[in-house]
């Protein structure tokens, strides 16, 4: 059975309440086509995991699709300022912000990837993050009797990763920085790849040394050219400054849904199962 789905089918397969690990970093290679489809299908109660998020988390918060965010940092880059919808959702109590130290997200995903309940974290030694959050705990190292901080493992239900190319099996290549995407693909119960292009398997064999995510880990693939826009995708397109600036001006959900609709043709263009 083919792993390829339309974007609509792939998003339908994600249940409300799922814990989603989102690939990319801040304004780079976020799986935006998938995120926009989550908003079109009015998904609810999503639990988001990412070291450093921006537009993806902000957009999902803007339409009340989120209940929890586990992240070390949520903000646009300096020139675009702070994420208004994420902040508002946290400040009004709609979203629970589980602040991490980026590294503790990595440690929590490493825990999931090796299926242990927690990971020791060397650097997290001081401060209120330890006291205020139930996913951090200081215990006595049973060997040395010294204090050691633990972070509870985070087991994502689905990792959503946007890549440059994959084949029909999901063997996927990310060009340029990988951020936490490879780790996410090992930590999540399911992996959904959205891809700029799908190569035939015989063509992908020529690049097998460069495959970052082997196909057997991948449940589904979605052809989504321009699927990271308006964030950047290395060698394909840069950040869409105009789009981000107009998004950041929106106040109402109507404006936001209309804006998402402007991407519909582009987001849904990969539905045919053709090679390109």
């Amino acid at each position, binding site marked *: 059975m083919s792993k390829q789905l339309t974007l609509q089918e792939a998003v339908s397969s994600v249940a409300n309440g799922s814990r989603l690990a989102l690939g990319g*970093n*801040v*304004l*780079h290679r976020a799986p935006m086509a998938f995120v926009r489809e989550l908003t079109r299908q009015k998904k609810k109660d999503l639990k988001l995991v990412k*070291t*450093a998020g921006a537009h993806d988390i902000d957009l999902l918060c803007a339409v009340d699709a989120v209940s929890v965010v586990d*992240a*070390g*940092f*949520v*903000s646009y*880059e*300096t*020139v*675009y300022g*702070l*994420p208004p919808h*994420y*902040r508002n959702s*946290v*400040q009004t*109590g709609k979203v*629970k*912000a589980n*602040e*991490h*130290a*980026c*590294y*503790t997200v*990595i440690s929590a995903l490493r825990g999931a990837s090796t299926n242990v309940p927690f990971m020791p*974290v*060397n*650097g*997290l*030694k*001081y*401060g*209120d*993050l330890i006291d*205020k959050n139930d996913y951090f705990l200081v215990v006595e190292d049973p060997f040395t009797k010294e204090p050691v901080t633990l972070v509870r493992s985070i087991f994502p239900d689905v990792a959503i990763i946007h890549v440059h190319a994959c084949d029909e099996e999901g063997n996927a290549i990310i060009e*340029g*920085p*990988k*951020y*936490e995407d490879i*780790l996410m693909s090992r930590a999540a119960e399911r992996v959904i790849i959205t891809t700029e292009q799908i190569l035939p398997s015989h063509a992908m064999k020529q690049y097998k040394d460069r495959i970052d995510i082997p196909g057997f880990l991948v449940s589904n693939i979605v052809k989504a050219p321009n699927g990271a826009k308006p964030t*950047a995708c*290395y*060698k394909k397109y840069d*950040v869409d*400054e105009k789009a981000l600036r107009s998004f950041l001006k929106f106040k109402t959900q109507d404006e936001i849904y209309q804006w998402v609709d402007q991407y519909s043709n582009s987001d849904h263009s990969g539905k045919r199962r053709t090679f390109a």
Partner: protein
Amino acid sequence: MSTDYRISDLMTCVIANLLKDRETVFHGVSSQLPMVAMHLAKNMHAPNLVHLNIPGGVNPSSIKQSSFSSAGADLVDKSESYFPLDEIFDLSMRGKLDVAFLGGIQFDINGNVNASVIGDYNKPKVRLPGGAGSAVLIPTAKKAIIWRTKHDKRTFVKEVDFKTTRGNLWKIVTPLCVFVYKNGQLQLDSIHPHTTIEEVQENTAFPLIYDHITYTELPTKAQLQKLKIIDPYDYRSVEF
């Protein structure tokens, strides 16, 4: 010495002067000013400084394409090798990261850093972006340097609303002065030549600690000329 400089130039040069040859130095997202400072140091007195960043590009030869981001693929494109964020954190945990550049919104005299919330953590008045790597890097990097382009009583407070972290904080560079963290206290290291001790105190909510007033070194002509070459689009000023 030169008088033809802006505060962003001065801060960049001050930070560059804090860096030594062969040090491993990391900056994160939204960190254009320290990124430029690292390149200035590398192009002047610290040619073997090791530039580490989130996307993982070790020693990118140019930073001219980092227009909106200090965490973009351009840093990998122009790099010598690949060493991404998770490995940089591991490096710091092993005690082998010399310098980390970090931000923050509030700081107090005891060296506490707040990058998390204003108000209550669970029902915040203002949700801030979060400390990113601060809570593990400030305790483990040998020297943590903070830069902040605002210096007022809401930034340098009596007591932070929330202690995101503390630890091996070394210096805080602001538009008015440089603080040094010594003997568990934030002390005045130097004030910039364009200000006065009174102005710094008026904008700081805790009493300044100092033996005598030292003035920050001005940017040199050579530094300012080099800045024009390595940062022609003035990314060092995006926060101003």
